[in-house]
């Protein structure tokens, strides 16, 4: 349950009698496991003891308090364990009571301001604050109200008033602002008067401190010192013989409060100094706004503030676990950087770009944040390009989109103040994205000399190396922040069949089968699930006592065969669903990863059902638009109505977003997803279930790559467990693909072989540069275009700046990580020359002019493929007139692709989306079937761009009858059609369309005598082609609606049919016209125009827009 962060914390614990840290972890985890018995339906004798937990808490808390000058690390460690012990002991008492209500056997006696239990909740919360776990503190006192504070004595009113302020501090939410109650009786004993005043001062100091933290007051009240001074006044130090402190109950509380105020004060957001350029109090405004809801910095942000602010004055590499506050680091950096220029925020997926845009807009305002979704295709369309970048804006985009921005508007980067790169482990991606990521960072360091970089990831094991790269490339300091702190704990467990009870069920089913006629081949039975839980953290220990077997009454359907064996087939998904069902019914919020195939998620979702949750209007609107886009009712709707979300690539964007929102907003209790989702969106859960340890991967991956991918993906999935403000402890359960039989904790050594990744602490791994091979080949003289990988081809074209920018190539190359890793900075010029010579040679051999390299650079397509496109396009334009319609250009593009040799085609269009059995699969063949496949391809793309629903597009893709089949199984038409439209139509084809555009634009410049001069309409429609392919538009008019903000393709076409654009307008005018009509529709300013169905479309579009 405890990760490296906790281990580091616990290292400062004192030595206690016969107790070591491992035993402390065992005690706490065993006890917490027992608190989950009701969730799991476990019925076994208790082994954990609340007495032990209380003893542990008392020993450590008192030890932390007694020294007059204690080591802060020791105090934090003791406070953390004491807080854990107290809260778990309470959970254990509730479990023993059996009805989930607070246990009365423990802590019903009065203490200070209520029951002992109430006091201990506040005490534990303060201990969490002292340990630096403010989210846990807030959870510990959640739901505590005035009814919990029941002191009927004369002290009651003032105690209750003060405790409400203490609880406010624990929650970081101020109490209601009322004056302290007065004592209205005369002649009260001095003791009563003294205690009343003590309480009053406690309340005042605590409230002042919280007000200061939250920017509700101006001057630091130094509440910690004031409270400590008050405690010291109760210690009569001059008396002989020495006496213990008077009013020990309040003295104890004062000491806890003083330390909690000191600790929280040291982490206050408001202590971060503003940047010197902040003349308009921009950062101060951010601080005030943010401090109202999140006044404290978590360790990563605290360290960043210490190392890199004000400014940011230094780069930073933040390699901290998932859910430990990376986005807060970015937010803090951005809040200061905006005082100096604009901010670039890179994220690897469009979904994450959208999520970041929403988060940033919440903090900095909608107008400050611009999101650039979509492809990285070359375009000269105004508005779609990144030519206008304003100061004090945050631009969120993928690295590929940034690559386009660097090509289109390199000058704007001189004013870049900060580049944040989320999920920066993308740098190590070998398939091609790592190359782009590294090169854009190198180019940013070249062009944006004043910018600071902030690389963030939970998956980087060598952040110092990255830091060294940034420092050497820019001559600026880089802070490396890699503390393993995390606000939540995750228990790791493996699920299997319980040996004893499973054997009994198996025997009974076998006997039944024997009694049945021979034609009955199988007999079903239900096998009980047991869990093998690790009591430390990662499953690194081989000691049996570091594991515990937990019985559950969860059952999974199995079958006995005539060979009288268990039939292991089909175990994993039903077992996963059964566990999800149980956890969900008992209050967990579950992310279930089924990493083997995207088709498993819908299957499992069909086996899971919760009570219907209230509908959410945005989710409903998204589903409505999904129905429209699909042309059939979305299969997701039925799942969401049963409280289950699904998130896979077999869903369209509207469905994915509906699932995300449903999960975020509680419409869905559980979400089934493929493993890749684990690497993207931040959808934290209280439990994670991993159904199967085999992941889907590219056929091109090596065994080691597959193992590494699986390890990273599954550990990352585990990292999704834990929601700091919902549950301090979470569970991650692994269901191996093949059923395990579990008898005792001694089975752990065997079990872990089915899930080896559990032995690793986290998914981080040592990254290396994706350009290492290229640089190595250059330095060794082995660089030839023939031996270059596709990723290196991409690098090759990226580095091909225009002739007059040779210095740019040298500069960018000199700032790459690969050159840094090779220690080859002094050889950069030679490296650049070698690449240039190789490029020139290649271009010559490819029969293309030198400027084609620049077209490759502009479009982001590999050099060899750009050269091939150049040759075929040139020949085509020499033979025929250029098209003057978008669809004509699309057809020409497919014609050029059809001319490519199969191996070249595979490099520019990945075969995977087309599968082995679709009508389009044979486009990579060299035989006669190829022509039919290309015909089908044309028909599918045409249907897509004509705005036909995806089910109609599927008619051209699916070999069998489609007949409105809306299912999402492996053999059903929609998943394949969605994959092709997402991966090929939305991503790869637009890049190729951009390459055609770039070739023609550069051809006009460099080869005025060539066939590149086109009619105005041909130029116009070619310009529109990349975006039209990606968006699914066949005319400038339909595309105008999409550009105006109608992101659902079919809806855009419907609006285009409803409100035809006036003829003869340029594209930007068209876009403005469509936007104005769209606003009219949203505001009901065009009455009596819409049919009910059309009105529903507009309503759905407006609802989704408002929720963005």
């Amino acid at each position, binding site marked *: 349950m405890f990760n490296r962060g906790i281990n580091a914390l616990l290292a400062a614990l004192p030595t206690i009698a016969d*107790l070591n840290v491992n035993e402390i972890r065992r005690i706490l985890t065993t006890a917490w496991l027992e608190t989950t018995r009701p969730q799991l339906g476990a019925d076994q004798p208790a082994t954990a003891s609340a007495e032990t937990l*209380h*003893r542990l808490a*008392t*020993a450590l808390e008192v030890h932390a308090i007694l020294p007059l000058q204690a080591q802060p690390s020791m105090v934090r460690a003791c406070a953390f364990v004491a807080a854990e012990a107290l809260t778990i*002991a309470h959970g254990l008492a509730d479990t023993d009571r059996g009805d989930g209500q607070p246990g009365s056997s423990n802590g019903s006696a009065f203490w200070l301001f209520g029951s002992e239990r109430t006091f201990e909740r506040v005490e534990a919360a303060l201990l969490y604050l002292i340990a630096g776990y403010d989210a846990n503190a807030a959870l510990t006192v959640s739901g505590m109200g005035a009814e919990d504070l029941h002191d009927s004595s004369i002290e009651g009113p003032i105690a209750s008033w003060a405790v409400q302020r203490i609880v406010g501090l624990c929650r970081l939410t101020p109490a209601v602002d009322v004056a302290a109650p007065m004592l209205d009786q005369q002649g009260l*004993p001095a003791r009563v008067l003294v205690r009343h005043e003590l309480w009053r001062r406690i309340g005042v100091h605590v409230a002042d401190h919280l007000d200061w933290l939250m920017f509700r007051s101006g001057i630091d009240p130094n509440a910690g010192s004031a409270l400590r001074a008050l405690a010291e006044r109760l*210690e009569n130090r001059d008396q002989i013989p020495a006496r213990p402190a008077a009013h020990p109950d309040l003295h104890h509380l004062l000491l806890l409060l003083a330390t909690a105020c000191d600790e929280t004060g040291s982490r206050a957001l408001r202590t971060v100094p503003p940047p010197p350029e902040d003349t308009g109090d921009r950062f101060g405004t951010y601080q005030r706004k943010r401090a109202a809801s999140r006044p404290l910095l978590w360790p990563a942000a605290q360290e960043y503030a210490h190392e890199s602010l004000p400014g940011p004055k230094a780069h930073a590499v933040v390699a901290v676990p998932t859910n430990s506050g990376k986005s807060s680091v970015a937010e803090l950096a951005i809040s200061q950087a905006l005082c100096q220029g604009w901010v670039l925020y890179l994220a690897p997926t469009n979904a994450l770009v959208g999520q970041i845009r929403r988060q940033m807009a919440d903090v900095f305002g909608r107008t400050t944040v611009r999101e650039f979704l979509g492809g990285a295709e070359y375009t000269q369309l105004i508005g779609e390009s990144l030519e206008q970048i304003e100061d004090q804006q945050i631009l969120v985009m993928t690295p590929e989109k940034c690559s386009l921005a660097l090509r289109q508007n390199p000058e704007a980067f001189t004013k870049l103040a900060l580049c944040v790169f989320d999920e920066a482990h993308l740098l190590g991606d070998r398939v091609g994205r790592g190359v782009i990521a590294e090169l854009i960072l190198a180019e940013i360091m070249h062009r944006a000399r004043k910018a600071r970089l902030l690389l963030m990831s939970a998956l980087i094991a060598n952040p110092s190396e990255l830091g060294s790269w940034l420092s050497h490339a820019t001559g600026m300091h880089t802070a490396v922040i890699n503390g393993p702190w995390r606000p939540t704990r995750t228990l790791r467990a493996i699920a299997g069949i319980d040996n004893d009870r499973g054997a009994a069920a198996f025997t009974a089913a076998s006997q039944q089968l024997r009694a049945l006629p021979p034609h009955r081949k199988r007999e079903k039975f239900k096998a009980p699930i047991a869990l093998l839980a690790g009591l430390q953290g990662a499953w690194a220990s081989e000691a049996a006592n570091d594991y515990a077997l937990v019985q559950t009454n969860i059952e999974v359907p199995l079958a006995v065969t005539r060979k009288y064996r268990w039939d292991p087939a089909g175990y994993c998904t039903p077992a996963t669903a059964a566990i999800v069902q149980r956890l969900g019914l008992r209050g967990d919020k579950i992310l279930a990863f089924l990493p083997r195939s995207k088709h498993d998620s819908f299957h499992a979702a069909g086996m899971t059902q919760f009570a219907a949750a209230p509908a959410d209007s945005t989710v409903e609107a998204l589903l409505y638009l999904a129905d429209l886009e699909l042309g059939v009712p979305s299969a997701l709707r039925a799942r969401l109505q049963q409280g289950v979300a699904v998130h896979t690539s077999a869903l369209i964007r509207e469905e994915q977003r509906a699932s995300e929102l449903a999960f975020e907003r509680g419409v869905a209790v559980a979400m089934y997803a493929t493993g890749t989702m684990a690497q993207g969106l931040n959808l934290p859960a209280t439990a994670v279930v991993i159904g199967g340890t085999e992941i889907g991967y590219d056929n091109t991956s090596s065994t080691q790559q597959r193992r590494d991918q699986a390890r990273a993906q599954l550990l990352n999935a585990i990292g999704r467990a834990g929601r700091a403000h919902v549950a301090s402890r979470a569970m991650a359960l692994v269901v191996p693909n093949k059923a395990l039989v579990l008898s005792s904790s001694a089975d752990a050594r065997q079990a872990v072989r089915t899930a080896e990744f559990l032995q690793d602490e986290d998914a981080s791994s040592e990254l290396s540069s994706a350009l290492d091979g290229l640089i190595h080949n250059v330095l060794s003289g082995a660089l030839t275009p023939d031996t270059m990988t596709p990723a290196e081809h991409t690098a090759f074209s990226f580095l091909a700046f225009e002739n007059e920018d040779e210095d740019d190539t040298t500069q960018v190359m000199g700032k790459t990580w690969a050159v840094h890793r090779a220690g080859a900075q002094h050889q950069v010029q030679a490296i650049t020359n070698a690449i240039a010579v190789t490029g020139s040679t290649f271009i010559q051999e490819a029969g293309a002019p030198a400027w084609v390299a620049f077209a490759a650079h502009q479009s982001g397509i590999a050099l060899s493929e750009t050269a091939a496109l150049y040759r075929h396009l040139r020949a085509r334009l020499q033979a025929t007139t250029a098209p003057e319609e978008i669809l004509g250009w699309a057809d020409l593009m497919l014609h050029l692709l059809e001319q490519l040799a199969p191996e070249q085609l595979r490099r520019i269009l990945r075969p995977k989306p087309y599968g082995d059995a679709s009508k389009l699969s044979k486009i990579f063949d060299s035989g006669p079937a190829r022509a039919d496949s290309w015909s089908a391809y044309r028909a599918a793309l045409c249907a897509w761009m004509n705005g036909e629903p995806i089910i109609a597009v599927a008619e051209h893709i699916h070999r069998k009858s489609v007949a409105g089949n809306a299912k999402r199984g492996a053999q059903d038409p929609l998943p394949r059609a969605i994959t092709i439209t997402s991966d090929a139509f939305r991503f790869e084809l637009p890049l190729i369309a951009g390459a055609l555009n770039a070739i023609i634009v550069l051809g006009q410049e460099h080869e005025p005598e060539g066939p590149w001069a086109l009619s105005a309409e041909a130029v116009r429609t070619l310009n529109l082609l990349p975006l039209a392919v990606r968006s699914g538009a066949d005319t400038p008019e339909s595309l105008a609606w999409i550009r105006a903000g109608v992101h659902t393709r079919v809806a855009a076409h419907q609006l285009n049919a409803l409100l035809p654009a006036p003829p003869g307008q340029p594209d930007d005018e068209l876009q403005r016209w469509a936007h104005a009509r769209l606003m009219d529709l949203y505001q009901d300013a065009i009455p009596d125009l819409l049919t009910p169905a059309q009105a529903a479309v507009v309503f759905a579009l407006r609802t989704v827009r408002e929720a963005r």
Partner: protein
Amino acid sequence: MSLIGTDNIFVTEDQKLVRDTRRNAWIGEGLGHALLSLSARRETSCVDGRICTLSEMHQTVTRQGLDSVGTYVQNDVLGVSIGESKSTESNASANFGEAINLFAEVEKGIHGPDLRARLSAFRYILEPGLKEQVKDSLWSDNASYLPIVVYQDNYDFTTARPKFQRMKTPLERRRVIVVQLSSFHAFFDAVADAMRKAVDEVVV
């Protein structure tokens, strides 16, 4: 005066109740405190070793909680002592039983806040070397339970007490301290008179 009253006249049943449950109980607690204080000056049979620190007397006599928490040292090893005082003229058995119940609760982890507060109050007066040992003593249950009963009518304290026998703390660290008074009320009246004479008001 709120604890011992202005005089020793208790006529009504309510007044007698105050006498028995407030005044005598508090003075009895003081008696136990005095006995343990003596153990700070020299070794006594109250605890094995010498008392180092002793908590102040219970603050509010009618509230539940630990009457006395202290630390003691024997052979350089620190232990924690917990005392529970009872004063009764004729019902020693029941009062002894109540004291035992309290110790059973302490073993269960109940009264943890009280114990932590009382021990924290020694922050300034406990020697640094001994402070280090408090955690070990608490974790190892190196505690002495000291029921202190002040009574008048004869009672056999060796009578079997299953609950007392079931406690985890070793027998040698469960010490019953008894003070039998020949004239129960006269003793308490005399102490109360002396207190009234000594101070204007008792402030704790």
